[in-house]
C-alpha cells in the first residue's frame, strides 16, 4: 500500500515504458534466435505446446537450442536435464553480481526477477545499475519484454516451420554480439576491469578450442574476475 501511495500510477507506468524501450536491443536479438529455436524444435518433432512451454518456463536460449538437439537424438531426460544444469550454472554468477543492487527488494520480487535472468538481461541490468539507480518497475519491465520477445520469436519459428525465411541479409544475428560490445564498453570503469575482461575473453576462447563447450563461460569468468579483483587489491597495498 505504501508503495502505491508513494508512487503514483503515471509514474509507475512511465518506468515500465522506460524499461520496455531499454529492452528493444534484446527484443531485436531474441526474435531471430527464438525463431531459429522454434524452427529447430519443430524439425526435431516437438509439439507446438512443448516448444512454447519450454520458452515460457526455461527461458534460456543456448540451453533450449542444445536441448532440442539432445531430444531429437533421443537422449534420456536425466542427461538432458543435467546438461541444462551445467550450461545454465553461469546464472549463479549473474545472480550474485546483481545482488548488491537489489539487496533491498522483497523476497517475492527477487523470485520474480530471478525467473527472467538471462545473459542479455543480466548484461543490460548490470550496466544500467552501474550508471544510475533503476526503479524496480523498469527492471521487471525489461525482463518481461525480453521474455515476451523470446516466446513470440519461438512461436513465429513454429508457424514458419520448414518454410525457412531468408532473414540472413538483415544481420540480425549480429544484434546480440554488438549489444555485448556496447555493454562491455559502458560497463568498464577501471583498468582492473579491463584486465578481468581480457583474461576472461582469452580463457573462454582457449577453453572452447580445447573442447570445453559447456562450462567455458563460467570458468573463464571466475578466472578473469579473480584476476581483476586480485590486481585491484594488490595495487591498493
Amino acid at each position, binding site marked *: 500500500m505504501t508503495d502505491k501511495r508513494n508512487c503514483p500510477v503515471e509514474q509507475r507506468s512511465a518506468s515500465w515504458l522506460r524499461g520496455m524501450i*531499454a529492452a*528493444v*536491443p534484446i527484443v*531485436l536479438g531474441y526474435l531471430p534466435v527464438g525463431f531459429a529455436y522454434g524452427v529447430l524444435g519443430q524439425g526435431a*518433432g516437438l*509439439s507446438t505446446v*512443448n516448444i512454447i*512451454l519450454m520458452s515460457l518456463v526455461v527461458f*534460456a536460449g543456448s540451453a533450449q537450442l542444445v536441448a532440442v538437439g539432445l*531430444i531429437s537424438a533421443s537422449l534420456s531426460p536425466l542427461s*538432458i*536435464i*543435467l546438461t*541444462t544444469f551445467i550450461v*545454465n550454472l*553461469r*546464472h549463479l554468477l*549473474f*545472480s*550474485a*553480481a*546483481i545482488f*548488491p543492487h*537489489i539487496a533491498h527488494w522483497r523476497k517475492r520480487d527477487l523470485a520474480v526477477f*530471478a525467473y527472467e*535472468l538471462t*545473459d542479455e538481461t543480466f*548484461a*543490460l541490468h548490470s550496466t544500467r545499475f552501474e550508471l544510475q539507480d533503476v526503479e524496480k518497475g523498469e527492471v521487471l519491465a525489461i525482463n518481461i519484454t525480453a521474455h515476451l520477445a523470446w516466446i513470440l520469436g519461438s512461436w513465429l519459428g513454429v508457424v514458419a516451420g520448414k518454410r525457412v525465411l531468408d532473414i540472413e*541479409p538483415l*544481420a*540480425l544475428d*549480429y544484434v546480440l*554480439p*554488438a549489444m*555485448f560490445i*556496447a*555493454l*562491455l*564498453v*559502458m*560497463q568498464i570503469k577501471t583498468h*582492473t576491469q579491463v584486465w*578481468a*575482461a581480457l*583474461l*576472461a*575473453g582469452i*580463457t*573462454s576462447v582457449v577453453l*572452447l*578450442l580445447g573442447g570445453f563447450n559447456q562450462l567455458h*563461460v563460467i570458468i*573463464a*569468468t571466475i578466472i*578473469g*574476475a579473480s584476476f*581483476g*579483483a586480485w590486481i*585491484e587489491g594488490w595495487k591498493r597495498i
Partner: protein
Amino acid sequence: MEENLVLITIIGMAVVTYLPRLFPLYALSGKTLPPAVVAWLRHVAPAVLAAMLLPTIILHEGNISLGMDNLFFWAAIPTFIAAIISKSLFIPVLVGMLMVMIGQWLGG
C-alpha cells in the same frame, strides 16, 4: 521421444535453470558482503561479457580466424569505436548490423 517424456524433461530443465538464478539472491539476502567479495563481483560483469563475446567475434567455424571471411570480427572494430564515442546502446548495435549487412552484400 514421447510427449510425456518431453514434458517431464522440460519441467526438469525449468527447475535446474531457475534454482541457480534464484539461489544467490536468497542466500545472500539480508547479509552484508565482505569488501573482497564486492570487489570480486564488480569484476564479474566485464569478465562474463568478454567470455561470451570474444568467441563469437574471433572464432569462425571453430577456429581462430581474423581473415576477411570472419565478418563478425571486422564489424566488431567499428562497433567498439561507435560504443566508445557514443556511450549508447543503440548506435553501436546499428553500426554493427550495418557493417555485417555491407560485408554480406560485398561478399555474397
